[in-house]
């Protein structure tokens, strides 16, 4: 009885850690530019595929290929922001949703064309490995992803608070006109921000690749979860993604154990809806409200 409950909570926390890992980039991009990136899941997909191909051709461990995924997605994000999304900044919100939705369609379907719709997975020696403590199972790959989420949040926070570029990003987020007057190159900062968001999202896709199913169509459902996580934690507030992820993970895990798996999805959206209506600033009350 207690074992089931404890196991449910552990599963929830680890699931939440995974959620947090891939939602931080979404929150960063929204916080700085106000862009709701509907192609977010495609960034995860590209990260996972980078690891998959490096594993398939060079037998490179996903944890070692993670830096390649980061660099590749940083460049990808930088270019996409610089040449495409930058053109709609300052226009009504809807433009950025539709534009990124168009990107989602293009990236996902080009990927299908190139790599087919097959489901793929990376099987490493530690893919199914569990640590057993007091009769509880802890899947190691998820634990590592959780660690990565913590590390990413911390490094990103440090970067935003302590470095020159980080300060410029924060200044741009607060008031882009004043930042421009202070000599910040807004377009470049936006491109760097999107690149950073894409890089940490690609990293998460890469470290998740040992235990998720990889396919070109995987993106949309991750985008939806990232939405929920970021709203729960407070949009645009970095550590919020961690809190939102953990809350959502535990809630889903409890619902799946004590009700059924389908209900847990329903509960996700009900929580999201109620949260928005009652407290759009998120659980911690630190999110930005448009």
């Amino acid at each position, binding site marked *: 009885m207690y074992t089931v409950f404890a196991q449910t909570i552990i599963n929830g926390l680890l699931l939440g850690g995974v959620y947090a890992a891939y939602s931080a980039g979404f929150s960063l991009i929204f916080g700085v530019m*106000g862009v709701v990136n509907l192609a977010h899941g495609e960034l995860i997909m590209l990260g996972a595929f980078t690891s998959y191909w490096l594993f398939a051709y060079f037998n490179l461990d996903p944890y070692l290929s993670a830096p390649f995924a980061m660099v590749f997605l940083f460049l990808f994000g930088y270019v996409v922001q610089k040449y495409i999304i930058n053109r709609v900044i300052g226009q009504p919100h809807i433009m950025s949703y539709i534009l990124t939705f168009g990107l989602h369609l293009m990236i996902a379907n080009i990927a299908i064309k190139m790599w087919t719709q097959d489901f793929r997975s990376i099987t490493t020696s530690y893919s199914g490995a569990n640590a057993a403590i007091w009769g509880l199972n802890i899947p190691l790959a998820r634990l590592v992803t959780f660690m990565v989420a913590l590390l990413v949040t911390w490094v990103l926070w440090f970067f935003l608070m302590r470095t020159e570029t980080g300060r410029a990003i924060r200044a741009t987020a607060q008031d882009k006109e004043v930042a421009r007057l202070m000599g910040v190159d807004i377009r470049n900062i936006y491109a760097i921000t999107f690149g950073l968001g894409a890089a940490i999202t690609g990293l998460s896709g890469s470290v998740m690749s040992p235990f998720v199913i990889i396919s070109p169509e995987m993106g949309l459902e991750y985008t939806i979860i990232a939405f929920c996580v970021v709203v729960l934690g407070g949009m645009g507030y970095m550590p919020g993604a961690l809190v939102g992820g953990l809350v959502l993970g535990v809630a889903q895990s409890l619902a799946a154990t004590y009700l059924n798996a389908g209900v847990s999805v*329903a509960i996700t959206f009900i929580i999201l809806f109620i949260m928005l209506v009652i407290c759009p600033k998120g659980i911690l009350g630190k999110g930005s409200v448009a």
Partner: protein
Amino acid sequence: MNFKIDRIILIMFLGITAALAFLPNFVESEYLLRLITVVIFWIGIAGCWNMMSGYTGYIDFGPVVYFGIGSYVVAIAMTKYGIPFFPSLFISGVISGSVAFLVGIPTLRLKGAYFAIATFAFAEAMKQITLEFDRTFSVSFFQGSDGITLPISGHDNSFFFYCVLPVTFLVMLAHYFIEHSKFGYGLKAIKEAETAAEISGVNTTANKLGAYVSSAFFLGLFGAIEAYWITYITPSDVFNIQKTVQMVIMTLLGGMGTFLGPVIGATFLTLISESLGARFVEYYLIMIGGIIIVAILIMPNGIIGSLKIRKKLRFI
């Protein structure tokens, strides 16, 4: 100048609708009649979205929920309670509208991305609830993923043509009313500057709610018609987010907050998907993605919106 164009378009609109009413008598090919019905169907649905989001600037990302509610109400009314189609159709509209009223009161306070996400979350939640309700409470009401089979209508395509045409006509009439009434000016004022509108004495909450509820009412009707037409519905079909996306893209291509925007956008996209979709199945979605990106970048106001700005027209 403006006044004249205004009249010309109204007369053309009434004339075309009247001419369309006789269409099934002349069109021999069942395929063509079906295609025309589908185009009119999508004009109406895109119009419903335009009515709310196009004019007020509140981006509704879950309009499909009212479409789905319409489908399920008609299905349940007909199969479980044996109510004939037309009364059930009316009930669908009323229930969709009532749900929109209850949901609209808390949701319409949200702004920007938050409104969009809340409406999206509501639509997905409803889909999951219809999917899981029966299994969770061990009843047989929505019939979950098994779906509901409606009584086979036995009607031919022209019957559905005559169901869709009047509803789309009403939607377009509502657009005309929005363009020429204080209510509509209120909606446009909300889009431009909501606080200023409120200070100037526009009852913004009532206006938004009015637009939201009427859009939901019509969507309910369309959902009900489609359910009776297809005769088999499942939650993943009728609450499919692709429908929302299609409404948004059609309106955006045509021009948000314009009278002719949904007409042009829906016709264009339906015909494109009919011709390209069949011939280039594999590249179709890539092309649609490309069209969306190019349209947003070079023509953010849509076809009609750009024309309106260039020619300085007030109403089309």
